[in-house]
């Protein structure tokens, strides 16, 4: 079922996931909103990339399309050579299960499952066994060893987000999408989670794409992609807080 990908050497060769001329329109006629207006961007393998932009810039829509959660109006989403925009729900479901991991702002753990069961949920759904070595390493690194039997309601926000992170990492997905992962956390827990995301990219070679509006969070990334009005508005490599804040301010001023 895999279609032959159309290659774009400049963008797609190194990219774990890439968008090519991606357009997403909500609504029709006068009320139509172009949330994405021809975005072409690649996310390199093994790198931690942040997508930033003011509210309504289309950063969440971009992530949803990249992750196969939402369908684009036109353009392509290339995940390791597969064009996700041309696939039916069954293939998308399989891709989400086996090739993509998620970390959400509101954790989204299943309340009735223990931490351990939440971590292995995608693998269970795929009918696979977790890699025991990786699982143990993740549990230790993320500091969840004593919490595996607990229900989400018995965990702190930071702990819940670390469980969600473990859930995303344990299936060795090609890319992890993190949607404002620190939005519901206090600054210390937030910093912890961001550090873990960065380490996952560095130590495990995990490709991570994070949507955030917090310059502090973006500073943990290897690269920041700026988005405004549904279009690409520049990028910063090896960012620091000041550079990101400046870029955001100039974006706001330019509007």
């Amino acid at each position, binding site marked *: 079922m895999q279609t032959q990908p159309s290659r774009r050497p400049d963008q797609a060769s190194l990219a774990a996931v890439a968008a090519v001329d991606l357009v997403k329109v909500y609504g029709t006629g006068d009320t139509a909103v172009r949330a994405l207006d021809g975005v072409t961007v690649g996310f390199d393998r093994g790198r931690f990339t942040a997508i930033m932009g003011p509210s309504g810039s289309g950063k969440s829509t971009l992530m949803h399309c990249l992750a196969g959660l939402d369908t684009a109006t036109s353009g392509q989403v290339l995940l390791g050579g597969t064009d996700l925009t041309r696939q039916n729900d069954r293939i998308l479901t399989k891709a989400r299960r086996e090739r993509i991991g998620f970390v959400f702002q*509101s954790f989204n753990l299943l309340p009735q499952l223990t931490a351990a069961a939440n971590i292995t949920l995608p693998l*269970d759904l795929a009918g696979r066994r977790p890699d025991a070595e990786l699982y143990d390493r993740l549990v230790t690194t993320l500091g969840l060893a004593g919490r595996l039997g607990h229900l989400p309601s018995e965990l702190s926000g930071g702990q819940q987000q670390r469980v969600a992170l473990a859930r995303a990492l344990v299936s060795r997905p090609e890319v992890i999408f993190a949607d404002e992962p620190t939005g519901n956390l206090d600054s210390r827990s937030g910093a912890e989670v961001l550090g873990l995301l960065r380490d996952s990219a560095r130590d495990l070679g995990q490709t991570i794409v994070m949507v955030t509006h917090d310059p502090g969070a973006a500073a943990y990334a290897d690269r920041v992609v700026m988005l405004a009005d549904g279009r690409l508005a520049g990028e910063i490599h090896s960012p620091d807080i000041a550079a990101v804040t400046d870029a955001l301010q100039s974006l706001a001023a330019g509007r």
Partner: protein
Amino acid sequence: MNPVLRTQMAGVARRPARLLLTGLAVLVASFVVYATVLAQQITERSILNGLSGTPEAVDLVVRNGDINTKQLAAISALPGVAETAARTESGGPFGNDYLSVLSDPGSGPLSIITMREGRFPTGPGEIVVTPRTVERLGLALGSTAELDMGEGRRVPLKVSGIADTRDDWGFLAYAPITTVTGLAGADFLSQIDVRLDSGADAGAIQQRLTELTKGAEAPEVATGADVRLSEAREAAGEVDQVFAVVATFVAVAVIAAGLIAASTFRIVFAQRLRQLALLRAVGAGKASLSRALAAEGVLTGLVAGVTGVLGALAAGHLVPLLAGAFGWKVASPGFPLGKAAATVLLAVVITVLAVLAPAVSAARVAPLEALRSAASAGAQRGIGVLRWITGLLLTGAAVAAAGYVQVNLPGPDPENYDPLPLLLGVVVSGGFAYLALIALGPALVRPVLAVTGWPLRRLGPVGKLAVGGVGGSTRRAAAVSVVVALGVTLIAGVLVGGASIQVLGDRELAASAPADFELSSSEGAPLPAGVVDRAKGSTEVARATPYRRTGSVTVGSLSDLSATDLSVKALPRLADLDFRSGSAEGAGPGKAVIAGFLADDANLAVGDTGEAAIGPKKVRFEVIGVLSDMAPLHTQLVLDPADLTALGVAPAPTGLLADAARAGEEGRTEALRVLRTTIVGQPEFGVVVLADQRDQMKTALTVLLAIAIGLVGLTVLIAVVGVGATTALSVVERVRESGLLRAVGMSRGSLRAMLTTESALYGVIGAAFGLALGVPYAWLALRATGVNAPFTLPVWQLAAVFAALVALTALAGVLPARRAARVSPVSALGTE
């Protein structure tokens, strides 16, 4: 308007489907309640029309006294009287049977027969007969029945037609009044039905009739309505009881609807916790919040109640139409408006009561809750200490009541036993047990789930998630499965009770009706030679078994006993006989099987030796089996043929038992015909169709069971609707969860399967609770009635109920599950 109320109403207006969903249980309840009201109406009218025997057109009735044809003529001539019909009965022996001849006008509104073939007699010497009479008495259209009226008077009656009547007993003929009085040879009428001209003064004519029939034994002059009512009462002796049972079951159904409504409201409120908390945060008072929610309950109850009543009304008026299409006469239920209003009011009251508890607890929400996620609301596990204590106290009360019943259970043959107090004890205990189940339900869900969910968990992640989903919110699971349990408890009780009574009935029938036919004389005379051989030689008759039966047997101090030599192994139906101890094994000379009461009164047990005597002749016998009831053929003692001969009983058989060789009414009629021919011309002998008695008893029992199960079905219906509503609401409530599962790679099909399985699990848990309560209580209730019924477990029926309920509850979850699977993960995750 209260701003809180306005907010709520705006929500209702925006999502009317949710209001309806919440009220679905109440809707079904009011449908059921009003449908029962209409069913009662239909039945009562049909009873008055059919079972009272007096046609609806009758305005006045003269009865219970001396009435003659002169008075009849006088009454018929009265101004204002449109028509009269005299009722009286005569009849006489016809061959070995009796033919009853009743008077009827033959046509018009006062007639109680409907012509099927031929014509109603126009002159004397003619009758019409019923179809069964044609079959049983071997009559045909145009044939002549000659009645032997005694003293050499023989009256030939020609069959001029065949007519249907209400109860066809198989020996009924109808003729004009002159024919019947002529046959009886006396001027006596038992009743005169009078129809008046429209607009006639019934009171004045009633007065006139009383004057006309004055005399020593003056008859009563009653209105047709009164007579119909009193006649219906006779039939309604049972009907009143049936409706009392109906009312009980309806009450249970209403309670079930209340429970379901309470649980659905609770879920809706849990879902709106954030919204409520927000209202509290911006300054809404607790009281106004409670009032607003209660007002919503009233609205829901009103809408659901009216919809349910209208639905029931439509269904109720459809029934006579449908039945008419099949040729059954069923009365229309009419429009009982008062009861409709009462039903709607009941729906509102239930809904408000159901809403009150959740409304109060929802209004107690701390404003701070608004700042927290509501995701965990409704998914509470376990129960508080207070609830534990309440539940355990209730359990204790149930056990105590059951223990009281157990201790006071009657012995095997109780005398002057009144079962009511103990039955009441069973009901009280059952009520406590059920309340305990409600209280402790959430704590019981997980252990039950651990057992029942085990195979599911092995089936992979979908099963595991479904079990986890149910186990994760035990309160929700308990709330809905408790209602399922109520339905299953009642069904299991009815099935177990029915099966046990059926076995008891079979045993009694084995003793009283061991074969299809019994041929014997009333005086116990020996059968004429050749009867047994001719019966045995016929292909229509099977298992022709001759026996001897004798009275005046004495055992010890007990006299006037009867004994037979019918072997307990002779006929297959005798295998249903229940032995209290011992058996028929080793039967032979000097051995006997005895009835239970003889064993008690003569103090005989298996292995003991007794002595039977007829006059001076005596035999000794050893008891090999003691029956729990009577011995076959209403005897107390089954002896070996040799012993019976030794007592001086003649060797010729006194009776013959036989079965029809072929099944069905036709085979039975043929066999009956053959047996009758063997005794033609010997009027002291007769053939009794035991099979008819057996059929009657079985039909009565089946009808009773069907009624009971139909009524219990109403509760099950509500339970299934409750499961559907709960699944639907839990799907709405957990839309984020569905979105997450889809996001992390669960396919639509798996999500559907998971939610449907969850719904089926409610059925599994409920059915498990229900069987655990229903079976023991059915047994206790059965023993408390004092009947000697054995405990019988209809395993396959119960398994079928279990399977059907699980299937139904799964079905209830299919639609909500489909809906959940259609939602896109992005919008699901975006939902608060």
